[in-house]
């Protein structure tokens, strides 16, 4: 027994060390700094202990709370769309049709496109005066005038950003779900059909349980990606219009590099991590209690 423990640790240790050193240590430092009024560049002043002041500031600051809201909106919308489109396309690709292998390959293309390219591409497509989306929709007579797709101060702009992000990312969900679908034995379908189950019943009783493991993976990954989203917003809207697309990560970045308040930025990022943790712990509990089996 002792020897196994020794081997177990020996195999585990290198990875643990790397992760602890490169993420763990800086993160503990971040927690520590969040309790200080710490200027980013410490030439002129020294850090001053402020306790939880930075956290209190975060919770009473309407801009930052707006950022929390935008982040949650981005995540929820992007998770729903990813899963909805992922499941639908997977079910479509599980049907028999001409050129199926080709389409299955095609579907993976957007996922392989680098995020930077995707962001720039969609910003270009959405452009209010010469964007391809405007041109397409007017030429098809769906809209009369060119529209400002990234110009709405409500949730409209964020929705457009989510659509651009989803276009790139849902294929991963598709291939996960598709693989899940392929593992469901055909005999089961035949069996329930004999029972006279309708389409909806089949979907709930067989299809969904069959792909649930894949969906849970997609859920966890998309939640993490969504709650810490930065790149696509930074590149597409730089937070505008009127701060309607600033996310938590954006505020962390702004505090650190714009306002040079490292303590405040650290507090913001701790809040971000906490939110992600809450979600993921919930999922993990869920996965364990349901005893998922593939």
């Amino acid at each position, binding site marked *: 027994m002792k020897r*196994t*423990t020794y*081997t*177990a*640790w*020996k195999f*585990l240790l*290198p*990875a*643990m060390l790397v*992760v602890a050193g*490169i*993420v*763990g240590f*800086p*993160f503990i430092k*971040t927690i520590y700094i969040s309790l200080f009024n710490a200027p980013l560049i410490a030439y002129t002043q020294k850090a001053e202990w402020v306790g939880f002041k930075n956290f209190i500031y975060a919770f009473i600051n309407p801009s930052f709370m707006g950022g929390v809201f935008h982040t949650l909106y981005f995540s929820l919308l992007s998770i729903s769309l990813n899963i909805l489109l992922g499941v639908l396309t997977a079910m479509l690709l599980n049907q028999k*049709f001409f*050129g199926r292998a080709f389409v299955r*390959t*095609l*579907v*993976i293309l*957007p996922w*392989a*496109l*680098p*995020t*930077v*390219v995707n962001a*720039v*591409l969609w910003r270009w*497509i959405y452009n209010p*005066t*010469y964007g391809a989306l405007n041109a397409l929709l007017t030429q098809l007579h769906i809209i009369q005038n060119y529209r400002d797709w990234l110009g709405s101060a409500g949730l409209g702009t964020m929705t457009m950003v989510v659509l651009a992000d989803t*276009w790139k990312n849902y294929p991963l969900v598709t291939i*996960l779900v598709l693989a899940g679908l392929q593992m469901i034995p055909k005999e089961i379908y035949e069996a329930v059909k004999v029972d006279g189950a309708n389409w909806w019943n*089949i979907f709930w009783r067989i299809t969904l349980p069959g792909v649930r*493991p*894949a969906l849970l*993976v997609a859920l966890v990954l998309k939640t993490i990606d969504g*709650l*810490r989203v*930065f*790149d696509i917003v930074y590149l597409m809207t730089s937070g505008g219009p009127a701060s309607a697309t600033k996310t*938590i990560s954006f505020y*962390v970045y702004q505090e*650190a590099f714009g306002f040079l308040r490292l303590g405040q930025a650290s507090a913001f*990022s*701790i809040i*971000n*991590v906490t939110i*992600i*943790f809450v979600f*993921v712990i919930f999922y*993990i509990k869920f*996965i364990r209690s349901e005893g*998922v*089996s*593939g």
Partner: protein
Amino acid sequence: MRRSSYHGHKILKFIFIYFFVILLIASIIAPFFWLIVSSLANLKDLVAKPLHWIPRHLNLERYREIFFGQVGISFRYALRNSILVALLATGASFVLSLLAAYSLSRFPGKYRSNLLYVMLATYMMPPVAILLSLYIMLRQVHLVNTIWGLSIVYSSFLTPFLTWILKGFIDSIPKEIEEAATIDGASRILILLRIVIPVAVPGIIAAVLLGVLMSWDEFFYALIFTSTNQAITLPVAIAQFTKRHSIDYGMMAAGGVVAALPPIILAVLLQRYLIQGLTSGSVKG
């Protein structure tokens, strides 16, 4: 799912399926089409109103610039750097996470099994939360502006992720195949190399592919940690087509096409393994 066959709606179903298949293909192709057109056409034609979908003048000038011209110098370095960083980071994290995954899968001690969640927790860390501390650390060991430094940073988020994928995959391999070797007294390393790895190939390929794609895609760390030709990666090089007051969409599009090709080719070629690796692996949590 031949649910409607017994309803006798075959023709309806046929139309239904092909309608959505065509819609799906169009939704995927259209943005790519526009990316490619933007990389080939004159800017003047791209900002015209009404817009012509097939511009009058198409030229390969931007690609020539990227591969042979002055403006493309940084881009060519970035291409090299991206390849090196992707391979280094993935290679290093692959070795680390294979060992860790094997350990977690085969000797899940009471406390150790929770370590997977601890590692995954680090994967959830938003980069901005640790960026500056990391920068200071890298500076102290003179690894800012090097592909080594960037690779080390990438390993930190690739390792937990790959461990998760690989652990799931190794879980799905029956323990029995190792038993004979254990009785023979072979060391664990040998068992891992000789017995587990050959069986785990789909999972390994999936993990390596994901690792390569994730490092290829990473932007934020690279933006802050690199700025010389010796170290910048493709996303940074593409972002650099943004000038002080202007954005060179044409060059960004051309750069985007070139940057997208390697991961797309990899993903298409190795798709089969990706599905296999992800499903029989990670889905088990």
